[in-house]
């Protein structure tokens, strides 16, 4: 098992800083995810680790060895490419066996290991098919098998599930996680899908504009977003802009632009910040009164039943809020309702950098 460290890695393409002073420590056997919006530098980071790109600054270590200048074929990584990059002129068997042939293994050993790995990913019987004769899910598994069969030091996955339909994506997500745990390979997983990242990872690094903004377990990142970007990128939170009225340690009182007075928890506020954004996750709204809770009154615009919960779209004095509530609740569009929020669920951040956020 291998530990991967990035130390101050920077990569520029002409005037774009694709990766900006990134330092990371990926632990042995861990499934580590790079999560971030499109263009934030995830693929570039992965390609630097694989040896396809040379960083302009900084270095990459596998355990204690500096591999920054090593060629891709000297690194012992195996990568699953976003479009799978299966070789169209080779059968499934030949695709998977390639890495072993390159390593000069005897034919019998190759046969045995290819059979094993195809068994593992559930592709036995399809050995003689060509990639074009496979479904998307099957192709994805061939790509995975091709990477796994060489028993890589580090497994690199670049949005491996993004080309699959929603249902298959969920299933493959579990399979990847299971395989990774069984084999215990240090794995770096790239995705822009926060739900995927939350469900699959041991730890997540949230990236934006080439920078790593927060590293932590999915729960840490979800419950304690380190800054406004992380808070807004993960979940469909309500964002309420406003001003600080009074600050008392972590506890802050704010006045939103819509005129709501709220008690919240200051996470990314510095003294002197006046412009702030309060972030509230949809599931932190409640329809039943809570002690000491903030109250927001608004008009229900849309009700959608989504199975485990009901999604409400509420217009509260011009602020648009998404709230998930108990599906049993009787709420109808047009109704005026009161939403209760505990002060610790109102996370208050400095509004600095607000303009740079991109909203759906």
């Amino acid at each position, binding site marked *: 098992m291998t530990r991967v460290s990035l130390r101050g890695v920077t990569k520029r393409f002409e005037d774009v800083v694709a990766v900006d002073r990134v330092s990371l420590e990926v632990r042995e056997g861990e499934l580590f995810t790079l999560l971030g919006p499109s263009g934030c530098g995830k693929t570039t980071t992965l390609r630097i680790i694989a040896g396809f790109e*040379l960083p*302009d600054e900084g270095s990459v270590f596998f355990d204690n060895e500096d591999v920054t*200048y090593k060629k891709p*074929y000297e690194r012992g990584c*195996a990568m699953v*490419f976003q*479009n799978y990059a299966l070789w169209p002129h080779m059968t499934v068997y030949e695709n998977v066996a390639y890495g072993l042939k390159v390593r000069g293994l005897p034919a019998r050993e190759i046969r045995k290991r290819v059979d094993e790995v195809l068994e593992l990913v559930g592709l036995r019987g399809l050995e003689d098919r060509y990639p074009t004769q496979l479904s998307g899910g099957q192709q994805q598994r061939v790509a995975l098998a091709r990477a796994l069969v060489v028993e890589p030091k580090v497994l690199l996955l670049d949005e491996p599930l993004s080309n699959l339909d929603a249902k298959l994506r969920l299933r493959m997500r579990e399979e990847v996680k299971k395989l990774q745990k069984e084999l215990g390979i240090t794995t770096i997983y790239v995705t822009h899908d926060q739900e995927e990242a939350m469900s699959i990872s041991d730890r997540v690094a949230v990236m934006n504009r080439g920078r790593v903004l927060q590293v932590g377990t999915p729960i840490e990142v979800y419950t304690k977003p380190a800054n406004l970007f992380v808070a807004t990128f993960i979940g469909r939170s309500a964002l309420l802009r406003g001003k600080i009225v009074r600050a008392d340690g972590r506890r802050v009182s704010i006045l939103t632009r819509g005129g709501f007075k709220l008690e919240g928890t200051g996470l990314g506020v510095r003294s002197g910040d006046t412009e702030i954004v309060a972030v509230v996750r949809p599931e932190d709204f409640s329809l039943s009164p809570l002690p000491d809770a903030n109250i927001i009154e608004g008009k229900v615009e849309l009700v959608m039943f989504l199975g485990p919960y009901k999604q409400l779209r509420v217009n509260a004095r011009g602020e648009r809020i998404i709230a998930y509530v108990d599906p049993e609740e009787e709420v109808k569009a047009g109704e005026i309702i009161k939403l209760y929020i505990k002060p610790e669920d109102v996370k208050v951040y400095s509004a600095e950098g607000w303009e740079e956020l991109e909203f759906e």
Partner: protein
Amino acid sequence: MGGSAASKLRKLSFYLDPVLIAQLLLPTTILFLFLVAPLLLVAYVAGQYSIFDVLSDPTYFSLRPRGQPVLILRTSFRGREVTIIKVVGVSFGAVINSLINAVIVTAGATVLGVAVAFVFARYEFPGKTVLRILATMPLLLTPFINVFVIRKLFDWRDGIISWFVCDVLGLPLRLGVDSIAGVAVAQIMTFFPLVYLNVYSSMVNIDPSLEEQAENLGAKGFRLFRTVTLPLSLPGLAAGSALVFIFSLEDVAAPIVFNEKRFISYQVFSKFIEATTGQLSPVAAILALILLLLALTIFASIRRYVMLRQYAMLSRGGRWKPRMRKLSAKGLLAIYLVLAPLLVFLAFPQLGVIIYAFSERWTGPLPQGFTLKNLWSIVEDPLVSRAVINSLTYSLSALALIILLGISASYVIARARVPGVDLLDLLVTSPVAIPGLVIAVGYFYFFTTFFRGTPLDPIVSGPSLLLVLAYSVRRLPFTARAVFAGLQQVHIALEEASLNLGAGRLRTLVNIVIPLISLNLLSGALVSFVYCMSETSTSITLGGLGGVGESHQAPITFIMLDYLNRVGGPHIVASLGVLLISLQLLVITLVNVVFKQRYAYVGV
């Protein structure tokens, strides 16, 4: 940024492994040695002499025209009173003649080519496929012998046109085109498809909505053509016309067949006749340099419109569904009464070559007797069969080198992230723009100077090796461009996946890249091969350096030229032409139909 030299070197070495370095150095070295150095030597030798020696000699340069452009004579011919009208053109000396001729040929070919392209690109009519094939037939290379047929068409005495007008229609006229004018007509007929194909592919690439918009604004007919269609097909027009201009300048077949010495190309060629002694007149260097500079100027001046690399890959298909219109009855009549006969006429030289090959005699206006003995003599006549074997040997050897250089260079150009790659690209594609005669002159000086007395000296060991090298360099662009086009379609991740799994660069190249571009490679190689087999300029100049004996080293085209003036020779030359036509048709079919690739129609 930046950093020390050591860290820069380290960076460079990260992206350049030994295989890539070899792939970079091999074509660069070969092309520097066997293209750049000989050309520089031409310039050097030319610089040793005063260019005014040439320019003050009326053979080459004169401001007063000599001769009368049209000769009209009333006389009795074969017992009849006839008027002979013979167009011959006037001479200003070889240099000016070549230039004027190139301008006239370019203009003629452009008018013809644009007209034909416009009809094909915009109108739908029955029989179009046949006419389109006819329109490309002149591009089937049949060195010398197609011009020989053209001369036969326009001969005032026994020419087909004269015979038709005077003997069939009974008019008291005998018409002829000969000498300088004959060369121009022959070249227009041969080269117009270059304009046609380029303009055609531009036209079918025009976004139809642009024309529709103009029509909505009221532009119609010729106005629409002049203000919208033609300007938008300018890149194709520029490409095609430039090629015609250069081909006309360097073409040596038409002047030779019309026995017209007053052209640069003929002058350069004729200097080689004495070159077996090891001496080449320095005038050859001066004239070659003039040719080279003219050609390069033309290419440089149209770079705005088309990049050099595009020349090696002509006729790109349309992305849009072009606007096709049905023709009115009047239009159809014009097609069948004007365009169809015109295209048959323009394709006649190639048809004539076939007729020549299968006829016993063709001294009068019409061919006589059917025979296979001309074809048979390819095998039977030892000089001819030897030439065929020589050409095959040279072409296949050149092909091996072309494939190696083509893959190497294109791979580096497409993939390596190092500075200076553009220069290699220019080097690899430039032979399209460099007249073969200049290369011939350069090679002569280069190998007789630096390799005197060695096996590479053509005076000592004959021209075999020189021809292989010349073919390789001249026909490299076809394969290199095809490979490059293939590489652009291979997603780089397919290679990275291989590198990533531990395969080195060479292994990745052999196991992944080459199989994936095999169709492109094969197509490019076939095109290179065909144009090696029919290569003319260096073949008829350098090719004669070994002399013509039983174990001669001359290639097909040299022997074709040699046999042209022998008794019964043209029939044998024609059967070699048929051999080359068959080869070209085979390759066109393989490339277009079997491999579904694009065929590049260039090569003289």
